C-alpha cells in the first residue's frame, strides 16, 4: 500500500519534470533575438544567417526541435554551447560539482542548526531563550545576503585577515584549507535558509506539544527533552522535512549572490551568463537542472512524510 503511494508520487514527479521541460523549452524559444543573428553580429549578410540557421537546425518546426532536444537531454547531451562552442555537458560538468559541494556543506551545517534552534525554542516557548532565538532568526531573514557577505568579507578577510575573500578550491586542498575557503559562503547561505527552517520546525513542534498525548506524557513523568524528541518530533517530521526541502532547494539557483561576491564558479552564475549571452542550450540545461533539483527535494520530503506517517505505514 505504502509502496503504491510512493510509486505514485515518483510517477507524478517525472510527469511534472516533463511538463517543466516543455515550459522551459517554449519560454526560451520565445526570448527575443535569433541565435544565428546573435552569433554572426550586425555585419552578417542574410545569406550567411540563413545558412547558419540551417546548420543549427533553427528552421525546423518547434515540436521537432523540442523532441530532438529532449532526446539529447535524456541521453545526457543537452547540445553545444553557442557561445563557447563547447558541449554544454562539459561546461556544466565543471560547475555543477562545485555548486553541489557548496549546497551540501550548507545543508550539513544549516539543517542540524535549524532543528536545534526550532526544537529548543518550541520546548522553551515564550521564555527568554525563545524570544532571543526568535529575534536572531528574524533578523537573519531580514538582512539581505549581499550585506551579510560584504560585512563578513570586511570583518574576516580585510580587518582580521582570518579568511580568504574569494573561494578558490584546489583539488589537493587539505581539510583545514577547505574549511577556511568555505567558511564565509556557507555562513552567508546559512543566514538565508536557517531562519525559515527553524521557524517552521518551531511551529510544527509546538503544534504537537499542544496535543493531549504530550500532556499525557508529562503526566507519566517524562522529562521535557524526552517529550520533545521522542513524542512530539516524530509527529512533526512531515511539515519539518517539507520546510527543509523548500529552503534547501534555494541553495543551487539562489546562490548567485554568494557565487558573485566570493567569485565562486558555481552553476547559478553560469546560468546568468547564459541569459546575458543568449546561449540557449546552456540556459535550458541549467533551468532543467534547477527544476530537477527542486522536484527531487520536494519528492524526497513527500516520501519521508508518507513513510513517517504511522497511519500509512501500518494499515
Amino acid at each position, binding site marked *: 500500500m505504502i509502496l503504491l503511494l510512493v510509486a505514485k508520487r515518483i510517477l507524478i514527479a517525472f510527469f511534472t519534470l516533463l511538463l517543466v521541460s516543455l515550459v522551459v523549452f517554449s519560454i526560451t524559444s520565445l526570448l527575443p533575438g535569433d541565435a544565428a543573428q546573435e552569433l554572426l553580429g550586425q555585419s552578417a549578410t542574410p545569406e550567411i544567417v540563413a545558412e547558419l540557421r540551417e546548420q543549427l537546425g533553427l528552421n525546423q518546426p518547434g515540436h521537432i526541435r523540442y523532441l530532438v532536444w529532449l532526446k539529447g537531454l535524456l541521453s545526457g547531451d543537452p547540445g553545444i554551447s553557442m557561445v563557447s562552442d563547447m558541449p554544454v555537458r562539459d561546461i556544466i560538468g565543471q560547475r555543477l560539482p562545485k555548486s553541489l559541494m557548496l549546497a551540501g556543506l550548507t545543508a550539513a551545517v544549516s539543517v542540524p542548526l535549524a532543528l536545534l534552534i526550532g526544537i529548543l525554542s518550541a520546548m522553551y516557548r515564550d521564555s527568554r531563550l525563545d524570544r532571543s532565538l526568535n529575534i536572531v532568526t528574524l533578523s537573519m531573514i531580514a538582512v539581505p545576503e549581499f550585506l551579510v557577505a560584504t560585512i563578513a568579507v570586511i570583518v574576516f578577510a580585510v580587518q582580521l585577515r582570518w579568511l580568504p575573500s574569494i573561494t578558490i578550491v584546489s583539488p589537493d586542498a587539505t581539510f583545514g584549507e577547505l574549511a577556511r575557503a568555505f567558511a564565509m559562503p556557507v555562513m552567508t547561505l546559512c543566514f538565508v535558509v536557517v531562519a525559515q527552517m527553524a521557524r517552521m520546525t518551531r511551529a510544527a513542534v509546538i503544534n504537537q506539544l499542544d496535543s493531549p498525548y504530550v500532556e499525557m506524557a508529562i503526566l507519566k*513523568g517524562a522529562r521535557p527533552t524526552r517529550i520533545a524528541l521522542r*513524542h512530539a518530533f516524530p509527529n512533526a517530521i512531515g511539515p519539518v522535512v517539507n520546510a527543509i526541502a523548500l529552503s534547501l532547494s534555494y541553495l543551487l539557483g539562489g546562490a548567485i549572490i554568494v557565487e558573485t561576491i566570493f567569485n565562486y564558479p558555481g552553476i547559478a552564475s553560469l546560468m546568468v551568463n547564459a541569459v546575458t549571452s543568449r546561449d540557449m542550450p546552456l540556459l535550458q540545461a541549467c533551468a532543467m537542472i534547477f527544476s530537477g533539483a527542486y522536484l527531487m527535494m520536494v519528492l524526497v520530503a513527500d516520501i519521508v512524510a508518507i513513510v513517517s*506517517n504511522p497511519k500509512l505505514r501500518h494499515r
Partner: protein
Amino acid sequence: MSAHLQVSGLEVTVSGEHGERIRIVDDVNFEANKGEVLALIGESGSGKTTIALALMAYARRGCTISAGQIRIGDTSVLELSREQLFGFRGNRVSYVSQSAAAAFNPSKSIMDQVIETAMLHKLSSKSAARSKAIELFSSLALPNPETIGNHYPHQVSGGQLQRLMAAMALISDPDVVILDEPTTALDVTTQIEVLRAFKKVVRNRGTTAIYVSHDLSVVAQMADKIVVLKNGTVREAGETMQVLDAPSDEYTQALMAAAKPSLRVESLKKPDSETEAALLELRDVSAGFGRVDADGMPKFTILHDVNLTVERGTTLGIIGESGCGKSTLARTIAGLHPAAAGSICLDGVPLATHLSKRTRDQLRRVQIVFQNADTALNPAHTVEQVVGRPLVFYKGISADETHKRVAELLAQVKLPVDIATRRCAELSGGQKQRINLARALAAEPDIILCDEVTSALDTVVGAAILDLIAELRRELDVAFIFISHDISAVRSVCDDILVLYSGRTVEFGKRENFAAGPGHPYTDLLVSSVPELRQGWLEETSARTILRPVDNAVDVDEICAFVDRCPVRLDGICDTKRPPRLIHANGNEVLCHLPQAES
C-alpha cells in the same frame, strides 16, 4: 488515622485579560480513604478536570495552583520540587484522560506507550513490564491481549483504546489513579463494557481512584463518595448513597432532575386525512462514499435501503451508535450528501438528491441543525446577522421587518432580545444551540433535522433544549427528525423511533411500542445499556456484548448485520440468510429472523 488522599483549601487561578487573577477553583476540600473511589461531578467549567490535574501538581497553560494542600500518603504533592515531580507523576499518581484517541501518541506502538511509565521510573525490566501489561490487558477484557500491544493507536477501536489507557495508568501500581470522563466519548454499549472492566480492576487492585464525570448515572455505578462541583466550588459532598437519595443542595437536585428520563410530548398527532401524502417520505434510500460502480452504487455503502415517513407536525427519532450512518441520513435528506439510490419526497414531490438542484422553496422547507453550534455559527457574526440571513435569503424582507422578526424568533427560543447585537463567539454553548434553532426556524420550514443537538451540551442545558424542542413542536406545525445516540432523549421528544444499525433500519415503530416489550436484539441491548441512576445497576443489568465473529467468507450484506454481536443469534439461520422485515409482537417493524424462527 488520616485519609489516604487529602485535599484542603485548593485554589487554582488563571490570568485574565488585564493580568488580574481569576479563581477557577476556590477553596476545595475533600478526602478519600485507601481503595475508595471518589467522584468529582459537575458540568463543563466546574473545575473538575483542573482539580484532578492539580492532584498531580499539574496545571494547564495559563493556570496556576495558587493555594492549598494536597497529601497523598505521606507526600505533600504541592511541595515537591520540579525534579521530584518527574519521579512522582505517573509513578504514584496516574491519569486516564477523556479522549484516549487523542491521548495516545499516533506514531508509537501501543505497547511502547503502555510500558513507558514503568520504563521512565525504572520500575521493572522491559520484559517484566511487557508481561505485566499483557496481564492487565486480559483483566481489562481486551481481545487478543498477547498481540494488541503491537498495534498502533489508529488500528484499534475507541473503547479498546480507553481500556488500553487504563492499563497504561495501572502499570506502575499507582497509589491513586485519576479517571477523567473515561467513558464520555463512548457509545452506551461500549461504555458498559469499559465500566465493568474499570470497576473490576480498581476493586481487585485496591486502587484509590478519582472518577471525574458529568454523568450522575455513571458515577452511581462507580463511586463510593461523590463531590458535586459548580464554578470551582464544592456544592455538596458525601457518600454516594446519601447524595443520590437525599441531595441537600439545589444544584445537585437540578442535576438529578436532568438525569431522570421524562416524557416531554403528550400525544401522537394523527395526520389530517388518510389520503394526504406524508410530509417527508424516503423510499429505499442508499448512500455511501468512494468510487461509484456501474449500477450507481458507491464503493462503501453507509445507508442500505432506508425507508421512513414523517407526518406533518410529528417527530421522528433516529437512534444508533457512532458510525451507524445517522448523520449521513440527515445530510442525505438535506441534500448535502447525495443519495445513490432511492427517492426522497417532500409532500409527495420528489426532491433532487443534491441541494444545488433543489428549488429555493424546497431548500427553505427542510432545515438542518448541526450537533456542534460552536462550529456551525460564524463566531465573527452577530446573532442578528445569523438569524436574519435566512429571512433575507428566503423571504427577501426589509431590514426593519428583519429586525422585528429576529426579535420574535429570539423570544421563541427563549433568549433575551438584547442578545441580537452580540457576537456568536461571546455566547455559551446552550445559547449558541438556541441561536442555531432560531436560525432554522427563521426559514419557517416544514421539517427540521436535529443532528445530535444536545450531545455537546451539559446535562442540565441539554434538558432545557429538549424542553424547547418539545414546546416548539406544540406551538408551531413543524415536524422534526431528532437524531441522537441517547435513547432517553429520543424517547422524551419523539412520536416514532427508528433504530439504525450499520446503515440499516433494524426497528421502526411508535414510541409506546418500544416500552411494550422486547424488539430487535440490538434495541434491547441499547436500552439495557443506558445506566440507571441507582447504585448496583451495573451488576444487575443484563446488557452484554458478546463478540462471536462469523465466518469471514460470508458476504455481510447477505446475512444479518448484527450477527456478530447478537446475544440470541441462531446459528445456521442468522449467519446464512438475510433477515426478513416483520411486524413484531410489540407492534414495531423489526429486521430479525428471531420471531419467525421461534414459531
